[in-house]
């Protein structure tokens, strides 16, 4: 028991340690990196990836993957934008529809993977393409924009992005979503079954549990994250362009992996994911503060992902040896 505790503690410590090291690095090298403005930027640019990554953690723990995250987020935002601009729907209704739409597509992913037995990689690759196309179709390939601060519905930005004084409200929502998902994953049956399925699906089935139901649930939760993410994205960036968004899922998946969730399923932590999201966000802002162009961000994220996974492999090996010494 003590050993298990130590192991968990170690894992969090390592990811958190990496976060601190990276932060300290930029604090020395970046321009105004430790300023409040930059701190707010770090929080703000993590909103949508945060929602996507927290949701995706569920699917990845089941041993699945969701490649449709980015495209779905954009399709959902485009749908909301089209309803708002072209159909004149009230903004609150658009937001509700955006979330429901994303959850519905999550459900579709779940059905493809469970009932129809498609490999998650293929199923969600298909959904990704469908969403890219759908986003263009419903908007007639024109970009959609959400209310700007100059419009009456400008409260949207103040409520979901930053207040006038610069307080990052989005970060509050991200924390709330984190707490809720944390409870679901760690304190409810849903989470228990999702972990169990990721570890040994056949055993769970033989225990008389409706595997399809709970696995499908993971995809719906991911859809929920995407739907909420699309609202925060829209409030932060206002303009949504059709045919964009693929690539964002890889950022989210990278954050999940950096946080110590295993792509082979059964192991994972939302706290780790959140740390992973902030590591990516700090990298993004830090490299700009060092006046390095955008491609460096992708480059260094790749290095961090490989480093995180290596650390995980090394740590597991050591833990096994420790176990043997004890035994």
């Amino acid at each position, binding site marked *: 028991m003590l050993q298990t505790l130590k192991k968990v503690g170690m894992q969090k410590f390592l990811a958190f340690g990496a976060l601190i*090291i990276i932060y*300290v*690095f930029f604090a*020395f*090298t*970046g*321009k*105004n990196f430790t*300023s409040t*403005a*930059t701190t*707010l*930027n770090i929080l*703000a*640019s993590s909103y*949508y990836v945060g929602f996507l990554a927290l949701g995706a953690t569920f699917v990845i723990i089941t041993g699945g993957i969701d490649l449709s995250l980015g495209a779905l987020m954009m399709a959902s935002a485009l749908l909301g934008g089209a309803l708002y601009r072209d159909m004149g729907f009230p903004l609150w209704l658009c937001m509700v529809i955006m979330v429901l739409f994303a959850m519905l597509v999550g459900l579709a992913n779940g059905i493809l993977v469970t009932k129809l037995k498609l490999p998650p990689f293929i199923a969600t690759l298909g959904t990704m393409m469908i969403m890219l196309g759908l986003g*263009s179709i419903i908007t007639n*390939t*024109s*970009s959609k*924009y*959400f209310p*700007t*601060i*100059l419009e009456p519905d400008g409260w949207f*930005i103040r409520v979901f*992005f*930053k207040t006038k004084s*610069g307080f990052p409200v989005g970060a509050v929502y991200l924390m709330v979503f984190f707490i809720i998902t944390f409870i679901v994953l760690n304190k409810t049956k849903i989470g228990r079954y999702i972990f169990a399925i990721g570890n040994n699906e056949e055993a769970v089935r033989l225990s008389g549990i409706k595997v399809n139901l709970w696995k499908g649930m993971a995809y719906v939760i991911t859809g929920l994250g995407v739907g909420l993410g699309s609202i925060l*994205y829209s409030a*932060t*960036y*206002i*303009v*949504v*362009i059709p*045919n*964009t968004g693929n690539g964002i899922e890889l950022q989210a998946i990278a954050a999940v992996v950096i946080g110590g969730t295993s792509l082979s399923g059964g192991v994972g932590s939302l706290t780790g994911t959140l740390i992973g999201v902030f590591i990516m966000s700090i990298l*993004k*802002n830090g490299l*700009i*503060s*060092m*006046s390095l*162009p*955008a*491609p460096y961000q992708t480059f260094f994220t790749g290095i961090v992902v490989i480093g995180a996974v290596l650390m995980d492999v090394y740590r597991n090996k*050591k833990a096994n040896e420790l176990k043997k010494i004890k035994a």
Partner: protein
Amino acid sequence: MKKAKRLLSVLLVLTMVVMLFAGCGTKEEETEYYSVIAKGFQHQFWQVVKKGSEQAAADLGVEIFFTGPEGESAIATQVDMINAELAKNPKAIALAALSTESVLSQLQEAADKGIPVIGFDSGVPNAPAGQISANASTDNENAAGLGAEHMYEAIKADIAAASVSSPVIVVILSQDATSASVTGRSKGFAEKMYALITADGQSAAITGDFAAITTGDVANSAVNVKIVVGATPDITDMTNAASGVLNTDNLLGVFCSNEGAVNGLLAAVNAGSTLGADVKVVGFDAGAGQKAAVRGGTFMGSITQDPFAIGYKAVELAVKAANGEAVSDVDTGAKWYDASNMDEPDIAQLLYD
């Protein structure tokens, strides 16, 4: 024990790296810092803009950081960049926004902080009054109109010979439907062409992917001026769109509204699409491929902006605005070039690779 040692050594190395960077990075606090945020690096055009801005920075003795997102649809990346630059408290920001709506709160923040914003290239169209100090840009509609004039001269006879029963078509190949500079050029060319055709008494219609500027009744017109936009800004989709255009019957001319469209067309021709000998092609901008096409006669000619001047003037305006001087919009100009004049010194200097 072994593990602890290894962890310690990793930490040590990291600390050393941090100190190394710290040593060389932060000592230039004294120079004036300006941010130049472009739309991307995809085109050679932006590389020349960058040269121009760096030249200006050197001439004026200021520090600049020229940056931009990976592509012209990466709005989120650009917004994050603007946020990050604002956090660095620059003396002024020069900005070519991918979308005005997405940067409104950032403009407000700059205004609140007293950081002047200079638009360059396409700038920040329709920005709230007073938030953009000045623009350094090409007038895209005029520039494209120049191309329409040259093309019309070459196809005048064919247009006069066309009728409702045997119509002809002029296509504008456009890379995207969002950037104001590209839409402006498409609009400028379409409207100028339409004006020239109708002025000579021929019937014409503008059709295609920009609902805002379609006009006339295509079924009862002898000339169709059609705007075609690629499915995505990717070169592959542009190539597909270009192949489709080249397969159009009675095609008289094609106007490629930026280098992306030019490259799409050239790629389509390389991939086997036939470009009829009589079809007149007019390009925009000046990449290596396009220059070869103009020199070789595949293109009748092209319009070039002056990217170097755009970059140079942007920084110049930014420095002036930061120092409290009154600034106003600068037109950075456009020129027609073809095989006959492209080696003349005053043109050749605008044709950067």
